[in-house]
Each structure stands twice: as C-alpha cells, then as structure tokens.
C-alpha cells in the first residue's frame, strides 16, 4: 500500500516540478513549485520523518512561496519563460 501511495506522490511531485519549470506563466510556476514542496512533505511523512515534513511544509511550501510571490508582485507584466 505504502509503496503505491509513495509512487503516486512522487509522480505528482515530478509533474509539479515539470510544470514549475515549463509552464508559461511564472505565477503558476511558483505555485507549482510550492506544490512540489507540499507533496515532498507528505512523502517525508511516509518516510517516517515528521520533523522534516513539518519543516518542508512550513518553510518550503509556505514561506518560500510567499517570498517568490512578493518578488513576482514587484515584477509586473512579465511572465514568459
């Protein structure tokens, strides 16, 4: 059961990663990157690392995304890869 779940999560994570680098819109790129972190934190839970999971969720998908968004907001009208 767990391996299947893990595989699914990994696939989501990788798709999110591809989206993050390849999608035309920077905004969606940033949010996808946040999604990758979020998936990763679930993966950490499965891998018996709750501390890491919490950190990744709070920092990787939370704060880091906020920072990206702050910077994006300063840079307007520009979203091509």
């Amino acid at each position, binding site marked *: 059961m767990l391996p299947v779940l893990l595989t699914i999560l990994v696939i989501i994570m990788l798709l999110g990663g591809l989206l993050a680098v390849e999608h035309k819109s920077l905004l969606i790129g940033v949010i996808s990157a946040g999604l990758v972190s979020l998936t990763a934190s679930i993966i950490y839970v499965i891998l018996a690392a709750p*501390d890491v999971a*919490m*950190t990744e969720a*709070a*920092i990787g998908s*939370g*704060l880091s995304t906020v*920072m990206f968004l702050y910077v994006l*907001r*300063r840079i307007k009208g520009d979203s091509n890869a």
Partner: protein
Amino acid sequence: MLKKLFALILIGGLGLIFFQLYNQRSRREGLTKTASYYTEKGPAETRSANIVTSVVVTYRGLDTLGEVTILFAAASIIGFFLKRSEKGSKDKTIRNQSSELLQTGSMLLVPLIFLLGIYVFVNGHLSPGGGFQGGAIIASGTVLAFLANPSFEGGRTLIHILESLSGMFYVGIGVAGIFLAAGFLDNRIFPTGNVGSFISAGAIPVIYSIIGLKVGAELSAILYSLRDTKEQQ
C-alpha cells in the same frame, strides 16, 4: 535548441554519476554506528523524546547554530541591501487595503498563529516540530498580518530586538555549556528530567524556543524587507 540538447547530455552524464552512486551505496539492514548511538544513548543522555531534536539541538548543535547564522546573515544582507537601494524613494507605496472581513479575521488569527508557533517549538523535544517549524509558523503569522493590513508596521522594533537577543542568548547558553556542563551547547546545564515529560531534556526546550524566536524574527525581518521594496512603476 543546441543548448537544450547539450543540457540533456549533461543531465544524462549526471544521471550516470547518480546511478553509480545509487549502485554503490551500502544497503543497510540496520542503523549506522552513529545513528545507533543516537537512538540508543540519545534519550538517556539528553532526555529528549524526539531523537531528531536531540541530534539537531545537542549532538549537532553547532550545525543548528550555523544554520541560524545563515538565516541571520541572509536577513541582514537583505535588510541592508534593500534598505540602501530604497534610499531616496521616500514615498510610501500605496497599498491596496484588504477587506474588512479579512482584517478583522486575521487580527484574531495572528495571535493564535503565534501561539501555535510557540506551542510547536516548546514541544520540540517531545513531538515532531521545533524551532524551525515554530519559527516558520510565527513568520507565517506575519505574512497574514501583512495580507490583512499591507501597511502593517507593528513589531518591527520588536523583531530586531528579538533577533539580537535570541541570538545572544543562544550563544550564551552554548558557552554556559562549557562552564556548567561538558562542552559547548551541552544541554545538561539544566536538570534533565525524565524522557517524555514537558520539563525535560535540560536546555533543549530553551534552546529550541530561542531558535524558534530567532527563526521567526529573521524570517519576519526578511518578509518586512521584501514587502517594503519599491513597486516597479
């Protein structure tokens, strides 16, 4: 196009290295020597239920101090860099006010989030979570405060004081370890208590709280600096 092809080739090469790395790794059944020591002796020596915490705060406490320093350095750099380059553009950016609902809601929520953050780090030695997580949660409270009120100015001075004081306390507790216990950042400067109880693990909860405050302060400072950058015309 050529660039992409070349990048693919390089990544293929890296893939080869990774594959060798993977092939060569030792396939362990049990823990490594170091990990066994931490899991066997860790709870007894540090009295911290969370073994990761005991490793992070005590055995590898210097790493954590270093990591806090990195955050501190990043916050300082961003601070002086953004502040200096904003000089001369005194005009405060007009920020859109958010809805009243959000404002009121967040005013209620922010203290709660702070409380949650504090809860996470003071329990770092017992359960998952600790200084970083708690600190990050506190910082997300700051984010919420900004969302609610984009020209929120509260706590700026407090952040700087916290930043300095928590850092100094951290170093101070570390040094106290040299005098009162067996070495720098030794947690046994306070009574260690029993594994699993709230008052236990010696200085670990104290250190983790300091880390939490420090991380929260640093991240909030970074967010403050980022928020205050000049909008592009």
